[in-house]
């Protein structure tokens, strides 16, 4: 039985494809900068679809794909209600969520503050858990601008190296959550294709160990 996998475009897709290729799966039509979105390996055991990260869970939940690999941040932020099984922490694509503000400027957290972020759900959860009142402004990119132009007091965003923050005169106030890529699975495929799924998990674990 062949298995259909949806991968979040970008870093995650590249890593998983490298793992598969290293483990002997050949995808003749795949290259990192190809514009093709669907690939099948020579042995016709795996079909891979590249989709935008928030769509991975949709594909898997509806059964258009058996399994998917996507960042945990996306799962929490955009797919919280998806009826899928989370079956493996791949340990790749790691990143941290942080609150950041203008360097050297104190933010009075006892008052209601304004937060600019691409992740309103995660941000709201964090501030609620810490008993802060906040107004959230959902932004779609260049979040670092928000405090500089006075749109918000702080931002909540993914921080990898911190270079972008520093370049824009911002500082991390608090790291509060770590994320990594997760493998999710359709609830029925999990049973019908468990052998194929375990084979894939094995491939990923072995490559992780080697990396």
């Amino acid at each position, binding site marked *: 039985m062949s298995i259909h996998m949806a991968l979040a475009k970008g870093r995650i897709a590249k890593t998983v494809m490298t793992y598969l290729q290293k483990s002997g799966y050949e995808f003749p039509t795949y290259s990192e900068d190809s514009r093709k979105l669907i690939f099948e390996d020579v042995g016709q055991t795996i079909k891979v679809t590249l989709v935008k990260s928030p769509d991975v869970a949709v594909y898997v939940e509806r*059964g258009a794909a058996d399994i998917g690999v996507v960042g945990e941040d996306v799962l929490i932020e955009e797919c919280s209600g998806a009826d899928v*099984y*989370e*079956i*493996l922490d791949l340990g790749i694509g790691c990143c941290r969520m942080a609150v950041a503000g203008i360097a050297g400027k104190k933010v009075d957290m006892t008052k209601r503050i304004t937060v600019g972020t691409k992740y309103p759900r995660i941000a709201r959860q964090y501030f609620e858990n810490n008993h802060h009142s906040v107004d959230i402004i959902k932004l779609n990119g260049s979040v670092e601008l928000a405090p500089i132009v006075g749109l918000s007091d702080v931002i909540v965003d993914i921080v990898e190296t911190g270079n972008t923050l520093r370049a824009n005169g911002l500082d991390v106030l608090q790291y509060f959550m770590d994320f990594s890529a*997760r493998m999710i699975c359709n609830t*029925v495929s*999990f049973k019908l294709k468990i052998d194929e799924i375990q084979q894939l998990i094995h491939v990923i674990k072995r490559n992780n160990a080697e990396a």
Partner: protein
Amino acid sequence: MNNTLDGVKMLHHDEMRNYDRIQSKLTSVIMNHGCKIIETPSFEDYDVYRHFFPQLRQEMVKTIDTDGRVLVLRPDVTLPLVETAAREFPRADQLLKFGYVSTVFREYYGRSTYGKDFLQGGIEILGDASPECDGEVIVMAAEILDALSVKHIRIDIGTVAYTDALFAGLSLAEEQKKHLRKYMAERNLVAYTKYLDSLSLEGVAYQALKAIPMLFGSYAVTLSKAYEYCINKEMQQALKRLEKTYDYILYAGYADKVQLDFGFASQLGYYTDMVFKVYVDGALYDVIDGGRYDTLSAQFGVDRPACGFGMNINLLYEFMSDAGLLEGTEPSFQLAISYSESDQSLIRDLMIWRRHGFRVAAYPCSTFIDSRDYSIHAVYENGIYYQETKQLTAQELEEQMRRL
């Protein structure tokens, strides 16, 4: 002004005919088991549902009654059925078998379909606590799919009593059990394993917990593994009971469809024992799910065991359509007549044909009739029927219809 609502659509003639066929096969199977067909009210009390099914709170479609009370459009059938049964048939040992086909107002997703409501068919057997009753419920589900020519099915059976007994035997705080059960029910293996390993458990109990989310597969192998993980008598009893249910299914001829899944865990404590889902070949959703819920009726004052299932007929329809199991459209007219002028003789012929059981109608020549809507077409002029230039009598046209 256009209708821009998602998940609402008109069903057309061919779809309605196919839905009718599915429904009539379903009712015939369940009536052969002695089920009485019922329909619960379209409106239900929001407060009652909020109490019993809090997880549906957001999903339910609410409306406001003339006196200001909040109502919901039938979010399920089981609850009102059990409630009514408790009121109208208060003898706790009375056997009651009900079946239904009703629209349920909840969202559903198929692979390429989405709806705000769906047609649900199902049964509930009240008053029989035996494992054989569980078997009959499962067999009924299989028989319905059989009757619809859906041959490749897989029935996954589990038992909540087994996991309940395991959790009861664990020396963990209630809060810890709640977390574990939540992750188990969601089959969030990442969070489940992480949480499980953070607890100081060891021995068979730990092995059992570790194994259960993946404890599924063929009957014999999975069952014998499940026996190895028993830490108390209650777990063994749950398996013994499951074996009796399996025997029933075996004797009924459906054992080859059965697999076990001990990972079905109910977070909400609605099911109390056997649970099952039916998958149809190639579809990545279950079309039937059900199980035993022995404690629900007691909450309405009559302590009576119950077991049943529900089937999403819309999802099944999608599957049958993909699998080519639906019947093609038949034209709505067997005979369509175009006339230049209608008269007594034409109307009399039409009435006779209809009395003979044919689908016929006549229209002025100026009316466009889609050729896909009829099997035979004729023109009527001054008391004579024509096909092309050929003259025909009413009897000859009737003969043509008979040959269709």
